[in-house]
C-alpha cells in the first residue's frame, strides 16, 4: 500500500508481530489477562467489544498494546498493520475484547485494507468504537469521526500525539469538541501511556450504559 504524500510527516507504527511470532506464543509476558480471564462478563454472554479505528499511522497499534498489555511488537518504523490483532484488556472492572483494525480513511473504502476495516465495523457489533486521531492533523481526521457518528457508532474520540501538536503550536480544546460532538473526546499520548486511563474509564462507562 502506498501513502498519499500529505501523510508524509505522520507517525507510522508497524506491527512486526506478523514477522516475529505469529502465534504470539512467547510474546505476552505482560499479558497475563489474555490467558487468565476467559470468562464472559456481559449480560448477553460473550465479551464486550472495543474496536479501534482511524487513519493509518496514528498510533492505533500503540493504543492496542497499551490497552491489552499484549505485546505486539510495535516499532517506530513504517509498514502496515496487515493483520487484525485481537486481545483482551481490562477497563476498570470489565474485561473487553479489543480489536485493532487496518488504517481507514473513510467509511467509503478504496483499498483492500480499508475494506477489511469497514467489514470489521459492520460485522463485529462493537460495544464501543474508539476513533484514534492524530492531533496534528485533527481537521483531516474529523470527517471520519463524523461518518462514524452518522453510522450510529458508539464512539469515543481519542486525540493522540497531543504532545507533538503542542510542539507545533496547536492547542485543541477537547472539552469544547466533546460538547459539540456529544461524545467523549480524550487527549492522549499513547506512547507514554498518558490519557489512556481516562479512555479505559470512558469505555467502561459507555459499555455499562449500553448494556444497562
Amino acid at each position, binding site marked *: 500500500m502506498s501513502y498519499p504524500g500529505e501523510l508524509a510527516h505522520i507517525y507510522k507504527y508497524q506491527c512486526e508481530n506478523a514477522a516475529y511470532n505469529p502465534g504470539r506464543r512467547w510474546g505476552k509476558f505482560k499479558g497475563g489477562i489474555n490467558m487468565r480471564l476467559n470468562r464472559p462478563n456481559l449480560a448477553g454472554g460473550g465479551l464486550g467489544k472495543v474496536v479501534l479505528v482511524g487513519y493509518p499511522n496514528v498510533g492505533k497499534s500503540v493504543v492496542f498494546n497499551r490497552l491489552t498489555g499484549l505485546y505486539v511488537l510495535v516499532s517506530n518504523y513504517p509498514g502496515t498493520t496487515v493483520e487484525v490483532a485481537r486481545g483482551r484488556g481490562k477497563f476498570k472492572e470489565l474485561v473487553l475484547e479489543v480489536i485493532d483494525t487496518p488504517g481507514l480513511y473513510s467509511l*467509503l473504502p478504496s483499498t483492500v485494507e480499508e475494506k477489511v476495516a469497514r467489514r470489521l465495523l459492520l460485522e463485529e457489533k462493537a460495544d464501543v468504537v474508539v476513533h484514534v486521531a492524530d492531533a496534528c492533523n485533527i481537521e483531516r481526521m474529523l470527517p471520519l469521526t463524523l461518518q462514524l457518528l452518522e453510522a450510529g457508532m458508539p464512539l469515543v474520540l481519542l486525540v493522540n500525539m497531543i504532545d507533538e501538536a503542542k510542539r507545533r503550536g496547536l492547542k485543541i480544546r477537547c472539552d469544547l469538541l466533546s460538547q459539540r460532538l456529544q461524545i467523549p473526546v480524550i487527549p492522549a499520548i499513547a506512547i507514554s501511556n498518558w490519557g489512556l486511563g481516562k479512555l479505559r474509564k470512558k469505555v467502561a462507562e459507555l459499555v455499562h450504559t449500553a448494556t444497562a
Partner: protein
Amino acid sequence: MSTQPPLELPYPKWLTARVAEIARYIQGRYSFSRRCIALLALAGDEDALQLLQQREHPTNWESIRAIVNETRRSCPQPVTYIMAASRQKAAAALLDGVLQTHRPQPETWLDVLGRLTMQPPAGIPILILVLYFALYRFVGVLGAGTLVDYIEGTIFQTYLNPWFTDLVCQLVPWPLIQDLLVHEYGIITLGLRYAIAIILPIVGCFFLAFSLIEDSGYLPRLALLTDRAFKFLGLSGRAIIPFTLGLGCTTVGTLVTRTLETARERVIATMLLALAIPCSAQLGLILSLLSGNRTALIIWAGFVLLVFVLVGSLLARILPGEGPLFYLEVPPLRIPQLENVLTKTITRMQWYFFEVVPLFVLASVVIWLGTHTGLFKSVAARSEFLAVCLGLPAEVGAVFLLGFFRRDYGAAGLYDLIAQGLLSTRQLTVAAVALTLFVPCLAQFAVMVKEHGFYTAFAMAAFTVLCAFSAGVCLNRVLILLGLV
C-alpha cells in the same frame, strides 16, 4: 447498540431528501444506521448495494436502485465529492474555536539532531559514532568481553560445569550417555553453556542497544540515509533492519526479512545474511582472533564487504522483478522510554531463548552422534582436500564442519588452532574470511527453510558454500601473489 441518535450533517437539501427517501425503503437491521447505509448506497458503494439487495424486499430494492441511479445521473458532480465537501465543512465548523494556534515551540536540540542524522555530511559520522559505541563498545567490549568472561569463565567453568560433570558421572554409569550430557560436547557443558554463557550476554546486549536505537526513532533516519546504497543491491533502506539485527544474530535477522515488501527483496536479503553478515558471536571471536594483526583485520573486513556488495548487486541484476519503491514517514527523534526499551529487549530475549536455545541442544546431540558414529571423522577426512585447496592445514576441515552447527563454534575451533601455532597470518586471514562467508548455522538454515521453502533454502546454502570456497581460493592466491601478509 448505539448510544446516541445518529448525527445529522449539513448536506445539500436535495441530498438529504434523497437519503430520507431511500432510508424509508430500508427495513432490515444493519450495524450502521439506515441513513449511513443510504448514503453509502448513493455514493455507489458496492458492498452496501449488495447488502441491500440481499436483505431488502425486491420491490424496495428496486425503488432504492431507481433513486440511486436517478441521483447519480442527475447530479453534476460525483455524489461522493459533495458528501466529502459537506463533511469537511462540518468538521471546519466544529473545530472553530476548538483549534487554537500558538507560535510553534522553538526547535529543540532533538529536532536539530534528527535533521542532521539524515544528511550525509553529518549523518555518516553520526552513524559511525553509533556503530562504534552501540556495537563495538557496548556489545563487543562489554557484552562479548566483560559479561561473557564473568558468566562463562567464572560461573560456568569454575562452578556449574564441574558440579554438573560430577553429578552426571555419579548418576549415570555409561560413558556414552555421560558424553551426551557433559564433557566436551555435552548438552549441559557445551549446548547450554554456549547458549546461556556466551550467546545470551552478547545477544542480550545487542538487543538492548538495538531497542534503544529503535525507540529513539533513529532507524527510519538510518534507512533514509542508506537507501541509495541499498538500491544498488536491489534493496531499499528498509533492509537496514534485518541487516543490523543480523549482526546480533543472523537467525533473527533472517526472520525479520519478512518486513521487506517484495519476495525479491526477501530473497536477496536472506542470501546476503546467510553469506556475508557475521553474527555478533562470530564477529566477536573473529575480531579477537585478528586483533593482533591490523593488516589481516583490514583485509578480512574489506574482502567480506566486497563479497557483500558484489553478490548483492549481482543478485539485483539476475533476479527478475522491479526494485522496491520506498515510502518512509519519519517520526520525530525521541528520548527512548525506559519501559518500552526494556519490554522490547525482554520480549526479544524471551523469543531468542525459547526458539533458539533448543537448536543449541540439538546441535550438541548431533555433534555427539557424529562423534560417536565416526561420521564426523570420515566427513572431516573428505573435507580435508578443501582445506588444502585454500592453502590451509588439514585440521581446518573439521573447523568448517563445526561452523555449520554454530557459526561461532567454527571460529572457536580456529582459536584452538592458533593457540597450537598451526596457522600463518595468511592462512588465518583466509580461514577467517571463508568461515565468515561459509554456510549459515543450523538455526539460520532452519529459519531459511521456514521462510523460503526447502529447495530455495538449500540452493542458497549450496551457493554460500560454493561462494565461500571460491572466494577463499581467490583470496589465498591474491595474498600469495601480492605477498601482503
